[in-house]
């Protein structure tokens, strides 16, 4: 398997890997380990502003292929300072292109998106 430079970097550094704890933290999970891909985002949320809840910091966990880990890590890194909206910092298709994810792996990026949506939905409910 050949990985793009971006994929390799984020897979190797995996910034923001881990979890968060505290009353201001929400989580979102998607996927199943026995099926090969599982992703979790933890988001620390700032008190709701006019523009909705804001993300102060983010962490991820990912069980999956290097593309899954790299994209989840990138999303978590980008998250801080953004509104906790259902949209990823970049749409799945753009992510697929910038990380050069083979098309047959699209399903795995959708797991990342699902975990993100679950986390931001939890933030909205706070």
């Amino acid at each position, binding site marked *: *398997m050949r*990985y793009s430079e971006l994929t390799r970097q984020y*897979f190797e550094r*995996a910034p923001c*890997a*881990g*979890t968060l704890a505290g009353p201001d933290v929400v989580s979102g999970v998607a*996927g*199943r*380990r*026995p099926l*090969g*891909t*599982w992703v*979790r985002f933890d988001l620390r949320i700032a008190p709701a502003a006019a523009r909705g809840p804001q993300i102060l910091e983010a962490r991820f*966990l*990912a*069980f*999956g*292929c*290097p593309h899954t*880990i790299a994209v989840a890590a990138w999303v978590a890194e980008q998250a801080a300072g953004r509104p906790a909206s259902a949209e990823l910092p970049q749409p799945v298709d753009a992510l697929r292109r910038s990380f050069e994810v083979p098309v047959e792996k699209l399903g795995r990026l959708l797991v990342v998106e699902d975990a993100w949506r679950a986390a931001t939905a939890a933030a909205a409910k706070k």
Partner: protein
Amino acid sequence: MSPPVYLDHAATTPVDPRVAAAMAECLTADGVFGNPASAGHVHGEAAFERVEAARAAVAAAVGADPQEVVFTSGATEADNLAIFGVAEHARPRGRHVVTARTEHKAVLDPCRELERRGWQVTYLAPDERGRVAPDRLAAALRADTVLVSLMHVNNEIGTVQDVAAFAAVCERHGGAWLHVDAAQSVGKVALDFHASGAALMSLSAHKSHGPKGVGALLLSRRHGVRIEPRQFGGGQERGLRSGTVATHQVVGMAAAFALAVAARPAEAIRLAALRERLWRGLEAHGGALRNGAPEDTVAAILNVSFADVEGESLLAAVAPRISVSTGSACTSASGEPSYVLRALGRDERLAEASLRFGLGRSTSAEDVDEAIAAVGAALSRLRRIGGGCAIAS
């Protein structure tokens, strides 16, 4: 950064420098470059003599007669020639073939093709250590069975099968020839074609420090093996495999086999010690499951499944430090979990999260220690990123 340690000798091996030197003698204008089929002049005769000397050396290395050797472009071609060649020739007698689920694709895919053409194929299941029971083979044979294809050394887990027992079962049956894919065997385990009782045997040079792109099919004279050719043309290899014989390639195979056979007894001991050192080191990382039992497997192969880690990421994480593979090289591009490990009963995740370590002539204790360290670092990092077993899925 220094290049990663090469621990994928079961996928392919570097050509031994002595082999490369022998090959180089058969290429350029100052060497033996003639066409071995050019019987009319000294350039052709010199090449013919090298080819026949190589045939004799290959035969000697594996306990066969020179006349039993048909040179091919590798074990894939040899497997295809054996399976289709026997099936076509024996077609009037029957159209049933027996093989095992843990065979190489070069055997399984021709069998699938035979099925498409109306043959029936029985795929034997191995036990959890990868061994095919001779009893199961006996039970699978039918009156119309014409061919049994069972490998000697498995390329993924290194299991050595009891070829002589398979041969005895076929002998009792009377009508079924035993074909043995021995692509992984030379230099890893003792190999004697005549003593094995096999009727046909496939060989490959590049698993034994010889060149890629050359192999052989052995056809037992004692069994009176007859096959239909598949490649037609100049009539080389007694009409069984037309096409210009590549002198440098068969010379390379012969030289590699001679070296591998001579080195084998000492290498087997040396590599077995390295393999156990490697296993102990990996085991210490936790969540490591050994595939295949040490007493049944060649010293050069260690296959381990790792719990709580995803296979592709494991491979990617160790790749900067060690070159190993998941599944066989031929199939690792496909990304599907190893069908061999699945046949041994591993679940999909463990089959996928397995590494095959292929030790070889150059492998040192330092290489093994580097592998242990690289896998250890990858496991702890990935298990941390993955949330480990602590966090429920």
